[in-house]
């Protein structure tokens, strides 16, 4: 399944490979690798999902791709350049990472949090200017959180905090969004809205996104590509329709009761009890 990829930027049918990872290994100083021999390519303008069981290494992989962790072996390229050689500020202008949990201790306002997304574009001593504030407000509007702007993040619900974290990533104006379970605390409506927002950004701005999720109902027809990871390795990848099958999912989640069925143009997944 893993292709024999080359290190340089591959232009395939005019589509640039934005992120490429080759033979990534990572361990948390416990026995066994939490990410083991992962190779993947993410083309520009792709909406991709990363699925897998709890503790299968999804979050680790997305942290590796965002440069928060360094692989013990293997290489990541961002637009053909080795990720670790790209200056942090320039990396922050291309990649935005949305963490899974967003512990907020100090009562910043949501707008203050979103405004930090503009940091990669402000000078070292500079503060955000008028246009940064407008971009932050736009980002909040995109995720449907304008009303949160002046609220204290410590008073927001888990889902509202996720919206704020998502808005901050959008304010970063990245080329690629790396999202770690952004939909976990969102209600049904906001989950759909999240996917629609990602689709909209992909179609309008050519945004690339890789999203860790347990929410398999969101994937087909919303996503272009699905990577399934099990015990730290990518075991299946392809379009949602190809990956979301009884056979693949049973293997990925190690659960023989998982069923996937298409109904009215979407794939539904459940585990039979």
């Amino acid at each position, binding site marked *: 399944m893993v292709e024999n990829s080359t290190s340089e930027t591959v232009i395939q049918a005019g589509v640039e490979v934005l992120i490429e990872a080759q033979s990534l290994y990572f361990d948390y100083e416990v026995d066994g690798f939490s990410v083991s021999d992962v190779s993947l390519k993410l083309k520009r303008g792709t909406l991709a999902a990363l699925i897998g069981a709890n503790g299968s290494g999804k979050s680790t992989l997305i942290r590796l791709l965002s440069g*928060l962790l360094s692989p013990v072996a293997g290489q990541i390229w961002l637009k053909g350049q080795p990720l670790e050689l790209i200056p942090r500020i320039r990396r922050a202008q291309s990649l935005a990472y949305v*963490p899974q949990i967003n512990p907020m201790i100090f009562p910043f306002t949501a707008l203050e949090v979103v405004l930090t*997304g503009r940091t990669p574009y402000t000078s070292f001593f500079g503060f955000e200017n008028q246009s940064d504030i407008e971009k932050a407000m736009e980002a909040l509007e995109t995720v449907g959180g304008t*009303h949160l702007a002046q609220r204290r993040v410590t008073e927001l619900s888990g889902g509202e905090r996720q919206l704020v974290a998502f808005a901050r990533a959008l304010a970063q104006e990245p080329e690629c969004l790396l999202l770690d379970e952004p939909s976990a605390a969102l209600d049904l409506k906001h989950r759909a809205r999240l996917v629609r927002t990602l689709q909209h950004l992909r179609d309008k701005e050519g945004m690339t996104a890789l999203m860790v999720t347990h929410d398999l109902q969101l994937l087909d027809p919303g996503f272009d590509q699905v990577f399934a990871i099990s015990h730290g390795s990518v075991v299946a990848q392809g379009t949602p329709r190809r990956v979301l099958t009884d056979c693949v999912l049973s293997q990925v989640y190690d659960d023989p009761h998982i069923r996937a069925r298409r109904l009215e143009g979407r794939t539904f997944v459940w585990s039979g009890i």
Partner: protein
Amino acid sequence: MVFPASPSNVHLAKENARSQSMAGWRLIRSLVLVLICLAVATVVSLWLGYQPLDLSLLRQDEIARVIFFRLRLPRVILAGILGASLGLVGACLQAFFRNPLAAPFTLGVSGGGALGAGLAIAFGWGASVSGVPLVSLAAFAGSVTAMLVVYRLSSTGNMAMPGTLLLAGVVVNLIASAGVTLIQYISDSTRALQILRWIIGTIDIVGFDPIWRMLPFLIPGWVVLMLIARDLHLMAMGEESAASLGVNVLRCERLVYAASSLVVGVVVAEGAHIAFVGLIIPHAVRMLFGEDVRLVVPCSFFLGAGFLMLADAVARTAGGLPVGAVTALIGGITFLGLLRRQRRFSAI
């Protein structure tokens, strides 16, 4: 996708954002305010003392002039320097550890410094290395050690656990104070008294020499902490998101450790440990000017200076009380009030 908020709501929110969020302007506004506070505090604390300042006397009387320039002025300035340092370090530590209770005192740094200084006094290390007294060096070493121990204990992998951090700080403080008590018990009474006076926290200073001696160490520490205020602003909202926004977390961590142990070490060495300034000043600043760390850091510096000047003036006027006791009383009571307000902070 239709968003339920009406356009006028969105417009209103935007207007609000515009008026309230120009952090640069807010920084200037709040700096002006704290500088006014500082100026008032300076004048008041120069005025107060055993004898209120008499300007005409100062012009004519030689002794009054000596008292003013050799005793009162240096003492007020020293109080300002110590308060500024503690306020600054407190603001940085709270942001860095994402913990509103982090401060030089609660993280065990002051305790470690006191133990180092206690050891030095007990062994009678009166010597100095290139102008720096060994007592100061020992206090500095103690502060750095305490900070390293607390951090090692509380960090798992690459995250510092806020709860463990405070617990470790408290334990290190207890161990340090037990050590100091032990040293006092063993050493002879003169030295024991010397250690006790040192620990209570007094700002006794004659002339400007001690100040000149401190500044070469303090100023680099101050500059570093001021410069990383922006990184700390991002760190205060989460280590991972800060890293993804381009903050070099490891470098930031090292700078915070090095600079704050340096500054606290010097402060503890020179002014003994003055409790709670580093804890309450950043909170006061946040209550006054909001959460933006880029604002809180410089404002805590100046407000800390003003606060300790006034506390010391009160201590002097009230018949030479130790300033450490005054700040601990005010600080302790304020701290309890903060704990009551703890609901504002979602998790400690």
